[in-house]
């Protein structure tokens, strides 16, 4: 979806996340989970998708098995555990929970593939340039600090300190290194502050310029996603949620909501699939 602005990509994922987390509907959770996996497959390849899918199913199985142990509502009793009923409804409830949890996880993985840190900063920067600046500065400091800590550690070892391998010696070493890192980072902060001043920080408001302009298709895309998300949530609140107790029954508007939600999830799938296809065809041609 690189043809769309990062904000559109973020909106697509956040929309899908909102519905899957708050709709409380078995069909929507299932649809969202599968759609997330398809997005992952299209964007990052089969291996990641299979991994995420397996992890998600494990979570679903776990919640589906564990939930009935705590919750004993429901009519269809499957067996008794410690003289307490173990019901199908609770199991399905657990399944829905697991699907919505792991679906959210899958969509967050999709988000990582669709919007990288830099683009995320671009989105933040639109609203809060100063915050974006602080974050990008932090992101610059982190690898330097990690490398510094490794160098400090080696410098100590090279000078004959901490050659033992005992746990207490290790702890001493790690904390000594961290102390030295603190001292270094204070100097680094002072250096960075000077450098900021030298380059005119504080004389004007910060402009954040590393951002994509929104095109017509982005506006269209975002409004569609917004509309579908809101209608999905409203439908769910009006009676789209699955009723689990005493017996499982689909909500009044559940099918309508699921359809709306599927439309929302299919939107990024279509775009991703189209891009994938184009790449395949283009590379095949030349």
């Amino acid at each position, binding site marked *: 979806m690189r043809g769309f602005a990062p904000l559109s990509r973020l909106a697509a994922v956040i929309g899908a996340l909102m519905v899957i987390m708050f709709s409380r509907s078995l069909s929507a959770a299932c649809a969202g989970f599968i759609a997330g996996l398809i997005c992952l497959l299209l964007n990052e390849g089969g291996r990641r998708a299979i991994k995420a899918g397996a992890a998600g199913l494990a979570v679903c199985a776990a919640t589906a098995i564990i*939930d009935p142990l*705590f919750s004993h509502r429901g009519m269809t009793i499957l067996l008794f555990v410690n003289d307490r009923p173990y019901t199908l409804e609770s199991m399905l409830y657990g399944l829905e*929970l697991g699907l919505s949890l792991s679906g959210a996880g899958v969509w967050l993985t999709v988000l990582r593939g669709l919007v990288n840190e830099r683009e995320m900063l671009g989105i933040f920067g639109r609203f809060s340039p*100063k915050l974006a600046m602080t974050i990008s500065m932090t*992101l610059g400091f982190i690898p330097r600090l990690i490398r510094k*800590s490794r160098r400090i550690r080696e410098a100590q070892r090279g000078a004959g300190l901490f050659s033992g391998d005992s746990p207490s010696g290790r702890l001493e070493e790690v904390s000594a290194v961290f102390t030295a890192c603190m001292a270094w980072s204070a100097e680094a*902060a002072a250096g960075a502050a000077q450098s900021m001043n030298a380059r005119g920080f504080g004389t004007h408001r910060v402009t954040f310029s590393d951002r994509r302009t929104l095109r017509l298709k982005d506006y269209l895309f975002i409004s569609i996603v917004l509309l579908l998300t809101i209608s999905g949530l409203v439908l769910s609140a009006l009676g789209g*949620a699955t009723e689990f107790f005493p017996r499982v029954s689909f909500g009044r508007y559940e099918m309508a909501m699921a359809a709306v939600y599927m439309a929302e999830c299919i939107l990024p799938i279509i775009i991703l699939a189209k891009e994938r296809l184009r790449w395949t065809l283009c590379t095949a041609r030349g």
Partner: protein
Amino acid sequence: MKKSLKAALFAGCMALIAGGCLLFGDRSVSWLIGSAGIAVCGIFFARFEKKETTSGEIALAAVMTALSVTGRIIFAPLPAFKPCAAVIILAGIYLGAEQGFLVGALTALISNFFFTQGIWTPFQMMIWGLTGLLAGLIGDRLKKNRLMLCIFGALAGLCYSVFMDVCSVLWLGGGFTPERFLGLTIASAWFTVSYMVSNCIFLLMFVKTAERILERLRGKYGITKGGG
């Protein structure tokens, strides 16, 4: 005009949160917590954006955040034994309450770039941010008294662990039931204790260093807490 706009915005947000609470049935609490996290962070970030900040404050906040994230990465092999909270508390004490919040919230956000971003991120941002904020508010007392500092660190560890448990219980199940909460708390008791102990250890270990470092910065580069 501007005031009314602000009021309208505020009312709108409140309505959204309240609406969510009403609509989402047994997931309303999760909605409430998530939106509270986002709202609290949003308010602080907006304040930060508006405030006049010196380059020194920004650089120090960035470097402290980097330090606590790096701590989380360096100490990654040891579960729940992390200097993050200690660094955040020290940032709160020595850089001031708002900086403390910023460091806490950004630590949660950025370290999750490196680990996994999850639905708990806003919540974690809020908790760590509030830890830094609180440390900043009672910073003068904590500076003087090592015992208080230790207790504060332990409490921060306890609260972090318990609140994260609450969060998990709320996500994990049809509403909040005491027995589930108890079960999870017991299951994570080891983590809780470890958070508390590690906070104390790291605070005691680093408090003197932090003090000397900050003093040095003030003397040499004129970088001071709040405004200056």
